[in-house]
């Protein structure tokens, strides 16, 4: 049984996130003082390997989007550290003497303003709904070229945009169109082209297929898969659709109420979930197969409010196996099988 920190000390880790929290203050009263905190992301530790797709799964309010936005520094983290493409020997020295100075130099969570700019070029994001993430008053060409201008990349804009468009399966004729002239699938392709324009290493995909139609969904997923191989991208794929997760991801991270409840290889998570929540989530997916009868676990109740999370295990209020200890203590993420981490006292293995 080892902690997840040991797994982070690996050559192939591109993104190393440690004890990351993001709390949002809730203001109230006449003097607008802070009356409560929304613990959107609470003490999250994990790593993303170079070239892999890590799927982040969870229900609404589980903190998946907040986590992604905190990593790419749209939000300022409340606490914790983020190391992006920092060599192993430097990360190893963090625990030793002088670790403080090292983290000052390399920890993204402590960067501010101008220091973040070179990092932003290497981390990009594709949003859920292309209709609202693309400016309706800009031409496709300008949308895709904007990041290049911002980062001062002196390239032949026209040819660069044309290359990007062909990469995402569109043609030059789309260059001088407005977003409203495109179909939903095409819009999402433009959003992907924009994210790829600065040649990033790491791309956050926030439910990129939930706003497109079923028949177009697979086109987008296959496109993302091909681009990943072509350009050597690393994906953080946020979704609530487990069918999509199984198709696209290498590893899966399940979140509940701002915490990681399970993390592991895709095949392990789907075949042998160790956390009761993962088990329930998997059994709740509607399966397009009328021939096999399945035993469904239907969870009682709803996700508690992140303003006032239950003491002890966050899942204890809905867990079918909860015992007395679960209501008092909060379990840590531990390795229960090889490379499978679960935060549960009475895990299912």
């Amino acid at each position, binding site marked *: 049984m080892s902690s997840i920190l040991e797994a982070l000390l690996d050559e192939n880790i591109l993104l190393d996130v440690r004890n990351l929290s993001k709390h949002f203050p809730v203001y109230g009263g006449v003097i607008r003082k802070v009356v409560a905190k929304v613990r959107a992301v609470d003490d999250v530790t994990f790593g993303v390997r170079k070239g892999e797709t890590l799927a982040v799964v969870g*229900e*609404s309010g589980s903190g998946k989007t907040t986590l992604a936005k905190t990593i790419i520094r749209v939000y300022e983290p409340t606490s914790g550290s983020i190391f992006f493409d920092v060599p192993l020997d430097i990360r190893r020295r963090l625990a030793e003497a002088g670790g403080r100075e090292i983290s000052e130099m390399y920890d993204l969570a402590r960067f501010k303003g101008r220091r973040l700019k070179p990092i932003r070029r290497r981390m990009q994001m594709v949003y859920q709904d292309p209709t609202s993430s693309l400016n309706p008053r800009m031409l496709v060409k300008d949308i895709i070229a904007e990041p290049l201008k911002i980062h001062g990349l002196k390239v032949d804009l026209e040819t660069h945009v044309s290359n990007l468009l062909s990469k995402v399966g569109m043609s030059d004729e789309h260059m001088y169109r407005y977003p409203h002239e495109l*179909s*939903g*699938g*095409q819009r999402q392709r433009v959003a992907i082209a924009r994210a790829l324009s600065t040649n990033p290493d790491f791309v956050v995909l926030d439910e990129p297929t939930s706003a497109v*139609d*079923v*028949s*177009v*969904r*697979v*086109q987008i*997923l*296959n496109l993302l898969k091909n681009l990943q191989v072509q350009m050597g991208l690393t994906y953080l794929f946020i979704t*609530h*659709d*487990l*069918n*999509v997760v*199984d*198709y696209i991801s290498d590893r899966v991270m399940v979140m509940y109420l701002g915490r990681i409840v399970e993390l592991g290889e895709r095949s392990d998570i*789907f075949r042998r979930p160790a956390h009761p929540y993962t088990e*329930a*989530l998997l059994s*709740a*997916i*509607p*399966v*397009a*197969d*009328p*021939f096999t009868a399945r035993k*469904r676990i*239907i*969870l009682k*109740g*709803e*996700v508690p409010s992140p303003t006032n999370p239950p003491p002890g295990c966050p899942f204890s209020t809905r867990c079918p196996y909860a015992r007395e200890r679960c209501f008092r203590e909060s379990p840590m993420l531990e390795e229960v099988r090889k490379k499978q981490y679960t935060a549960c006292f009475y895990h299912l293995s």
Partner: protein
Amino acid sequence: MAEVQDLTLRYYTYEGVVKALERVNLVVRTGETLGVVGETGSGKTVTALAIMGIVLPPGKIEEGSIILHHDGGYIEVTKARVDVLQRIRGRLVAMIFQEPSQALNPVYTIEDQIGEAYLTHMHGEIYTKAHQEVERDIERGGIKVRIERLMLRRLLRNPNDRLANFLGRLPLLGAYRSRVKRIVRGMVVDMLRQMDVPDPERVASSYPHELSGGMKQRAVIAMALACRPALLIADEPTTSLDVTIEAQILELIRRMKVRYDTTVLFITHDLGLIAEMADRVAVMYAGSVVEVADVKSIFSRPLHPYTQALLRAIPRIGVRELTPIEGTIPNLVNPPSGCRFHPRCPYAFEKCKLEQPQLTMPEEGRLVACHLY
């Protein structure tokens, strides 16, 4: 239960005529769950609304008929008068909408909104019950109870009685109203309890914004089932909900269908939900029904090229290889000639471009609209 025949519906917009439905044929059998599956713009919701008799301008039914059977008689929805339609809605056909926060009025409590269904369709029962209560109290009560009895008698004769409704607004004279309200509240709380709502008393007096998405959808379902409709239309009832809440709602719909012996028309774009819920399936594409079959046949041996392509294109657990459907959904202002699927169809031939295929029965119990059969 319901028959839709050759329904053609168009929207006359500034950008042109949107040919939303083109000769839609659909039969809902009494007691079954018919799943309607299709993508955005395939016409599933428009068909469902037309069955309810709701065709909003600029939409217009060009031809075709919708017939609802019940108690041996039938109603032609497309030709029915507004007051007839109002009596049908909620009582014979009811609908659960996709987005519960939009289906509920934000300025009324849940109790008011579900209660409205009862007062519209079951005022007879409610006033009779109130009247019986008053008869019991009449010995002990004084003038106030006598006025109440008088009002209720008038309302029993004519629920729209002007005098009673006017006097009901005055203090003292309006006592019958609180009696009626109490009875309705009892019915609402009872209905919410059947929907597995924890603390139904509190939920009944809440406003929609105070409730979670799952709870609002339960309230919407309670409203739809309040007057025991014979046909329940569920239009993507779980799209806006999380997976674990979705599982709860599906279980609820299944249980209510058995308890109230309701026929269900289940509309979705998710083939997984179809497999879970439906007995028979109708597949729609770009405004037409392209295939109808029982649920097992659809999944084991789809006949229409669109159904086949769709089944190969949906991500499913354990499926590593997926083939996308090339091209995009057609624009309905300018739909492709002939069969609307032909530009994306791998088997398309000359005839497909010229002639729209009709639903035919290549074998017992299966309908398909394709020139291949």
